[in-house]
């Protein structure tokens, strides 16, 4: 009898618990009559930031948040077109060393203080002087910032900076007074002039809650309808499956950077997919040191001709842009030469035979996390290389070990990725190739000379011609990189979300998003 009573009571308790678990979430959130705030939840796979400081955290996640919280001096379409931001006009001196900005009048920070040239000066002085910042290398030529009056800022460079505007739009303008008052806490709940303010930032998870700033100048000045979203909840979720599941469960409105695997399932479930050609390109890097195997040009060409790029893009990735030139088609310096990278197994075999290659193991190093499907792409290359007699050994490494091996030249091949900024291949050519940052040990006087010229050339037309020459040389010599493809960023959103844009560098424009 006692046992039956106990069992009955336990059953009632379990039923009550299940009833409490179930039901619509909206019913559990207070009075049903109160209008709910329009909240947009974004799931990103970017590296989780540890603060909202763009110059300490690298990655598109922090960029996304900074574009919402702050404004730069100029806005950009991330493909080389610049429009007024906090600066309404600007001029550059003939020698490209002095940039004068006329600042927008009547703009206020979210703490009520007026935006003036002093804030511009403070922002850039911090970049020049704060040694704790890690991503300020691009501003090495910035010498000083003058503020002749509240509405004018003049930037002086010690040497030309060809990517000046590309880097400028990525500099959020900070509130000088708030920064000085609380330098430690500023980047946890920053004060900006942007379309949204920070409600909370969780340093443990990077998750950020933003609230619309109804006083933002852009709602009137920029030619777009004000967003109806009142709260943006930006979350960092590394796991692809979890992000996709969160969208299907209704926990997310937009999820970023999924693989093509999810496309069919999400589309059939009624979600909208966006495919954005990226500025990233995947490449094979050769170790061209004097005593290295791939110092031999024939072997470099052989490997390139053995790789079926179309097969990789179609079968493994489900989409993307096959490389026909050493940069994506949307980037500066691209030439459609009608030929692309040759695929010819027979010729490749002949080149291998003629090279005297003895069948020794070739180390191909890469990191599984550096781009989507890295393992499968590496295995495909290994298999394709085997067809022409090259014996490739795959070595997937974790990031720190990979960086170490690359910098010390302990590799034969690298499967890697690099992304340009705003469609401009300047950094890749002038720095990565010019200074051989990735340790390929490729020596070519003509290439070095071209890179030196590009580094000091601000004229876009002239720079384009120089870049084309560099890329042609890379194609002819098949060094230091052989390019494979540019992946496509796949994003998905619920069908009631519209008017946002994903750029080729992975960051997004969410300020004018609409959620119906």
């Amino acid at each position, binding site marked *: 009898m006692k046992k039956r009573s106990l069992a009955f009571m336990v059953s009632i308790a379990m039923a009550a618990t299940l009833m409490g*678990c*179930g039901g619509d*979430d909206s019913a559990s959130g207070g009075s049903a009559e109160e209008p709910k705030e329009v909240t947009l939840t974004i799931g990103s796979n970017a590296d989780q930031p*540890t*603060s909202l400081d763009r110059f*300490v955290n*690298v990655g598109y996640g922090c960029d996304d948040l900074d574009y919402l919280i702050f404004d730069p001096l100029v806005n950009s379409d991330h493909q080389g077109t610049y429009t007024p931001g906090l600066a309404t006009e600007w001029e550059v001196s003939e020698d490209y060393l002095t940039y004068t900005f006329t600042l927008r009048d009547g703009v206020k920070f979210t703490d009520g203080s007026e935006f003036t040239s002093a804030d511009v000066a403070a922002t850039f002085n911090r970049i020049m002087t704060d*040694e*704790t910042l*890690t*991503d300020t*290398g691009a501003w090495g030529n910035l010498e000083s910032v003058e503020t002749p009056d509240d509405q004018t800022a003049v930037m002086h460079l010690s040497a030309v900076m060809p990517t000046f505007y590309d880097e400028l739009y990525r500099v959020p303008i900070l509130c000088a007074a708030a920064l000085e008052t609380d330098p430690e806490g500023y980047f946890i709940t920053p004060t900006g002039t942007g379309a949204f303010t920070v409600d909370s930032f*969780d*340093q*443990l*998870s990077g*998750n950020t809650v933003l609230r619309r700033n109804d006083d933002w100048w852009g709602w009137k000045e920029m030619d777009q309808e004000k967003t109806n979203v009142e709260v943006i909840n930006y*979350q*960092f*979720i*590394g*796991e692809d*499956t*979890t992000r996709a*599941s*969160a969208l*299907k*469960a*209704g*926990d997310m409105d937009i999820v970023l950077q999924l693989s093509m695997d999810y496309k069919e399932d999400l589309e059939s479930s009624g979600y909208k997919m966006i495919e954005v050609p990226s500025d990233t390109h995947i490449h094979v890097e050769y170790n061209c040191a004097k005593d290295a195997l791939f110092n031999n040009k024939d072997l470099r060409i052989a490997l390139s001709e053995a790789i079926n790029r179309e097969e990789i893009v179609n079968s493994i990735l489900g989409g993307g842009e096959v490389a026909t030139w050493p940069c994506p088609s949307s980037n500066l310096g691209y030439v459609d030469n009608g030929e692309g990278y040759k695929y010819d197994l027979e010729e490749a075999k002949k080149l291998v035979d003629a090279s005297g290659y003895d069948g020794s193991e070739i180390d191909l190093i890469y990191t599984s996390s550096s781009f989507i499907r890295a393992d499968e792409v590496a295995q495909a290359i290994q298999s394709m290389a085997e067809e022409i007699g090259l014996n490739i050994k795959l070595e997937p490494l*974790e*990031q*720190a*070990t990979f*960086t*170490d*091996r690359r*910098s010390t030249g302990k590799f034969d091949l690298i499967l890697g990725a*690099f992304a340009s900024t705003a469609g401009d291949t300047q*950094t890749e050519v002038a*720095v*990565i190739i010019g200074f051989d*940052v*990735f340790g390929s040990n490729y020596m070519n006087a003509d290439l070095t000379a071209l890179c030196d010229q590009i580094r000091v050339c601000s004229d876009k037309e002239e720079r384009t011609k120089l870049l084309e020459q560099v890329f042609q040389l890379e194609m002819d010599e098949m060094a230091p990189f052989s390019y494979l493809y540019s992946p496509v960023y796949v994003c998905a959103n619920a069908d009631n979300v519209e008017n946002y844009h994903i750029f080729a560098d992975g960051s997004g424009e969410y300020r004018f998003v609409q959620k119906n």
Partner: protein
Amino acid sequence: MLKKILRRVALTLIVLFGVTIIAFVLVRLSPGDPAVQMLPATATEEQILNMRERMGLNEPYIIQYFMYLGNLLKGDLGFSFHFNMDCGALILARLINTAKITIIGVLIALIISIPLGMIAGIKRGTAVDTAATAFALCGQAMSPVWLCLLMILIFSVGLKWLPTQGVGTWKHMVMPSLCVGFSFCSLVTRMLRSSMIDVLQEEYITATRARGISKFVVYVKYAFKNAILPIVTISGAQLGLLLAGSMVIEQIFNWPGLGQLTVTAISSRDFQLVQSILVVVAIIMVLCNLLVDILYTFIDKRVSFN
């Protein structure tokens, strides 16, 4: 008793000292420069050297070690350059998160596994025993990744009862806790079943039944008390391991716990954070073992603390 506990604490400190040496050496033996990891790929040599200087990596190893040890003795676990915050605060916050799902998971596991294990042992050879054994085998064989994804599919995507990931409300803790507790539940069920079977075959159990004591009292007061000893041991060890963080579960549910922190610290070569996490985990393991030893003396009076 107090003296004995204090002696154990003193021995523990010696163990922890050894752990600091091992942690210090291990992180420095691994390839990869922490300064390079902190900077973008296009960083110059000068920037790398400045970063190494800031991180104190240019000092001789012995100086680095004694500086770390000295700070540790003052309660300072160091500074995380990757997270740009104090290691102590960071580890504590993450440990609390991991502890939430671990304690709930273990409690749920014990609430399920103890009765189940007992009944399986008592009703050996019956359908109940078979079901319990099958449940235990499934739990031990099941991959945590598969279990996590299955739960998300059913409870989040399908039924929309629970959120997929993250922190915030009690609902966010349900699935991670269940996943943490599941394999532990299976283990305890199997062990308790075996333990009960062994104990029930003892002569003193037969003697208590012969004296007319009811079955319920025999099973709970006499058999269970003896059968629980191995469970206490295994629970202590498992609790320590679970508090160190389940990296897989935390990654899938995006739960900001100690496991996730450990993975990030190692991959970013955040030396001070890795060392401090290892020390903290060692302290947790030692405390769990100490707790088990103390509990033993209460459960079984024949066992002395030594």
